[in-house]
């Protein structure tokens, strides 16, 4: 099921440039999120709550090798990084000279690798050099990939090594897991505490300023393109670690296990960063859509 999801995602990408991102891939994975449906608040009403609360929205991937992670049981660190059957097939194809397979994996990972490089080096040109070096390292190292880890983990490790070397004295000694440690992330509240009744008040912990409704006619103020630009801006305001995780999960459509394996971080740490990122992006949309309502 996981393999089918990735293949579907690749078909979506191969269908042409500018292919929509994770929303389409999630549909193809059959997770039940309807990108055009009732929860499409930014093109439709958010009041029609149609979908069940248990909609698997970016939740744990239940297919194939990821079945190991069912019920949120923490896998051992080694288990998390095991290659899947799809990895084995992919590496065999790459060793066999399958140029299409190579082009596909480059297209899939190039963006995430650029973002990873950006955690260590400054500027687009430097990041592109790191990623270029990474791919050359992957090409040269294919015979040495021993399948003790997933393929993505291996590629990300190569990239991290290149980025750390390039990143200068300050960054060289910092492993990726430390850069992505929520304890070092400028967290702050997911939502302004003043949105809630303070402890000691009658309805302590309840909403003081409830979420502003995104009324159906908000869409008349907002074309889809504006929404995408707004979200990109909101992402740019996030810390690099938050942006990195949310982009992988919600734009690139990676599952939780894929992100944890590639970045070698715990599901808990990943969730904290994701939570902070999504909370802030929602708040940015709320500000914009509340203002739009008043316009």
């Amino acid at each position: 099921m996981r393999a089918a999801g990735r293949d579907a995602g690749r078909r979506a990408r191969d269908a042409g440039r500018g292919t929509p991102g994770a929303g389409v891939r999630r549909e193809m994975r059959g997770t039940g999120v309807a990108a055009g449906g009732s929860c499409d608040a930014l093109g439709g009403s958010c009041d029609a709550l149609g979908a069940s609360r248990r909609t698997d929205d970016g939740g744990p991937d239940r297919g194939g090798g990821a079945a190991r992670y069912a019920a949120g049981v923490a896998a051992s660190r080694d288990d998390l990084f095991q290659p899947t059957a799809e990895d084995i097939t992919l590496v065999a194809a790459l060793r066999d000279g399958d140029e299409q397979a190579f082009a596909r994996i480059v297209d899939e990972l190039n963006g995430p690798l650029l973002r990873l490089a950006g955690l260590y080096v400054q500027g687009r040109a430097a990041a592109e050099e790191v990623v270029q070096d990474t791919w050359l390292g992957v090409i040269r190292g294919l015979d040495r990939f021993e399948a003790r880890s997933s393929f993505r983990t291996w590629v990300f490790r190569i990239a991290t090594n290149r980025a750390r070397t390039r990143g200068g004295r300050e960054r060289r000694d910092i492993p990726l897991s430390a850069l992505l440690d929520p304890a070092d992330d400028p967290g702050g509240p997911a939502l302004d505490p003043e949105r809630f009744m303070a402890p000691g008040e009658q309805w302590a912990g309840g909403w003081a300023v409830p979420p502003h409704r995104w009324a159906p006619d908000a869409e008349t103020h907002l074309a889809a393109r504006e929404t995408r630009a707004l979200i990109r801006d909101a992402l740019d305001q996030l810390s690099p670690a938050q942006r990195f995780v949310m982009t992988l999960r919600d734009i690139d459509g990676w599952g939780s296990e894929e992100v944890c394996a590639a970045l070698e971080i715990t599901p808990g740490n990943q969730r904290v960063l994701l939570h902070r990122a999504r909370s802030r992006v929602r708040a940015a949309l709320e500000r914009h859509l509340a203002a739009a309502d008043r316009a």
Partner: protein
Amino acid sequence: MSSDGTVGRGPGASPGRPDPATCAGVVELVTEYLEDALDPDVRARFEAHLDDCEECEVYLEQMRATIVAAGRVDVEHVAPATLDRLVAAYRVAVRARRNPDAHGA
């Protein structure tokens, strides 16, 4: 939520954990809920709260809408020239592996 942990940590909260019976707690727990990472009893209390609290139901749906909207942000594709260069390098390496004795790879 706030790092001092006072908001959303009502009497129903486990030590150090947000209370899903409060709205502030729901806001803190919403990602874990969507990730299916809540303990069953916490999830049950979270959903029970949503049954009675329209504002929190709205918040949850706004979170879902945010995720769906993010999914429409265009994926960056590798530039064709860059991809061509990399495929060329790959092709050279594949040939060199097949013909280790050949000259000039």
